[in-house]
């Protein structure tokens, strides 16, 4: 089902690309299709990373299995395990969609081993950053026993303001500030720099990766603090098995 939906999204932007939007005027050395394929793939994978922990815990609370889960695992173990499983499955569907798109639409990238290694490192950094954000909202879910809906909102902001289907140089004012507050913007900028150009901009790669590492550390620490407080609160008030 996810594979099918991913394919539909890619096909839709494939036909939009036939309107010939000129991306080179924004300093991006590629066709629109190559540009948005990268963005859509990253969005699909990072969307899973963002939604998994919070969605999983809300589901456990709804199904009444949260108390049992808490007895078996700790919060960090659960977060890492469920995120990696989710990302692995969504990556499979994204790669399958890209593979099909390659045959149907003829878009492709020439990627060296060095580029693959850089992309893997970038993926890991982005997964940690998005997992940490999800953990923060999961702690609210544990505390209030309700899904706030904030993850869906962040996902929509991510889809719009991180430069997935249009270059962020189009943004001005508050949308640009919002864009710079989202980790995916840095990830996507780096990914474009690695995959779409032959000469690496090492300064950009190093700066963006450092931002992602620092952001992950800060968000991760806050997430763990909030989660431990929420779990303590629900244990103290005997609400672990509530809904």
């Amino acid at each position, binding site marked *: *089902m996810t594979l*099918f*939906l991913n394919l*539909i*999204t890619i*096909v*839709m*932007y494939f*036909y*939009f690309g*036939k*309107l*010939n*939007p*000129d*991306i080179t005027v924004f300093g991006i050395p590629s066709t*629109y299709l190559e540009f948005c394929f990268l963005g859509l793939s990253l969005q699909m994978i990072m969307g899973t990373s963002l939604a998994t922990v919070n969605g999983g815990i809300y*589901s456990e609370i*709804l*199904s009444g299995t949260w108390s049992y889960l808490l007895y078996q695992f700790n919060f960090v173990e659960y977060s890492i395990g469920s995120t990696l499983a989710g990302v692995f499955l969504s990556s499979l569907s994204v790669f399958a969609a890209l593979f099909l798109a390659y045959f149907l639409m003829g878009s492709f990238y020439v990627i060296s081993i060095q580029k693959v290694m850089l992309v893997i490192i970038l993926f890991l950094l982005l997964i940690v950053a998005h997992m940490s954000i999800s953990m923060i909202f999961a702690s609210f879910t544990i505390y209030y026993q*309700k899904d*706030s*809906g*904030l993850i*869906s*909102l962040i996902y*929509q*902001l991510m*889809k*719009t*303001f991180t430069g997935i*289907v*249009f270059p962020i140089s*189009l*943004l001005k004012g508050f*949308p640009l500030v919002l864009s710079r507050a989202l980790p995916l913007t840095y990830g996507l900028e780096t990914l474009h720099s690695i995959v779409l150009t032959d000469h690496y901009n090492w300064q950009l790669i190093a700066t963006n990766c450092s931002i992602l590492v620092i952001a992950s550390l800060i968000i991760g620490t806050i997430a763990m603090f909030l989660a431990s407080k929420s779990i303590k609160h629900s244990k103290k008030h005997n609400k672990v098995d509530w*809904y």
Partner: protein
Amino acid sequence: MAIKEINKVMEKFEYSELSTKFLLGFKATFYRNIKIIWQYKFTLLLGFVNTFAVASLFFYIGNLVPNQTISQDGYIVSSITYIFAGSMLVDISTRILTQSMNSFTSEMKQGTFETLATQPFGLKKYFVSEITFEVIYRMIFSLIYYIPVLLIFPVFRGLTLNFLSILSFMVVIICIILFFFSLSLLAANVTILVKRGREISMVIIGIMHLLSGSLFPLSLFPEWLRIIAYFSPMTLAVQSFRLCLFGQGTLADGMVWGSVVMLIIMSIIFLLLFNLTYKKIYSKIRSKGTLHEY
């Protein structure tokens, strides 16, 4: 023998003199849903930001089109306005269908669906009242959410509309609502059988969104895909919606009346299908004992 017993039970619930009247049941469903929505009032506020983000995406994509104009069906319009109109219609329709599916999925997840199914009110009446509520609620809130967005992005400013095109536009809108009401009803019916409402609605919407030409003119499709696209009621709805807005289209235009007729016919077919499949699906889940499963 077992099936006969199930049918007897169902008839008892549906035709019993003790059964609550439809209007009373609808009122009860209405109050219950209002109470649930009020518990999630924070989510209601988030809707404004979410709609702003969705609309911004259309706005910036529209900026990418060369010369920022698109011509179709005899009218030329700004690409931003063109994409905005089509995508806004698809966005609102998506919300209606997804909300309707989510409400049933949520009942099943929480284990309250079984109780609702065995109420003297009758499951069928509950289906109709629940979907009616969700369609009305989503319509009203989508319109409220789009008011500030349209003030921030004044994409529809300067449009020249005459009385007939406004009238035709309203008829198209009513037909779209009727279509999504009947589609939601049928999809909800399938949801109780396969238990995956959200996924079903996402696939339906995904296909309709792609074929509707909300982001680009249908002339970009190859011939075979364009023919398929015109079999989707949403495609005709989006095209006639734009024609009334930008090309002063009226019900006299083939595209507009064609879409109205198509939407009405599809709505009737879906309502009939719901009526035909409802009892069978209900019997099946009861005889299989999967009513309480998720």
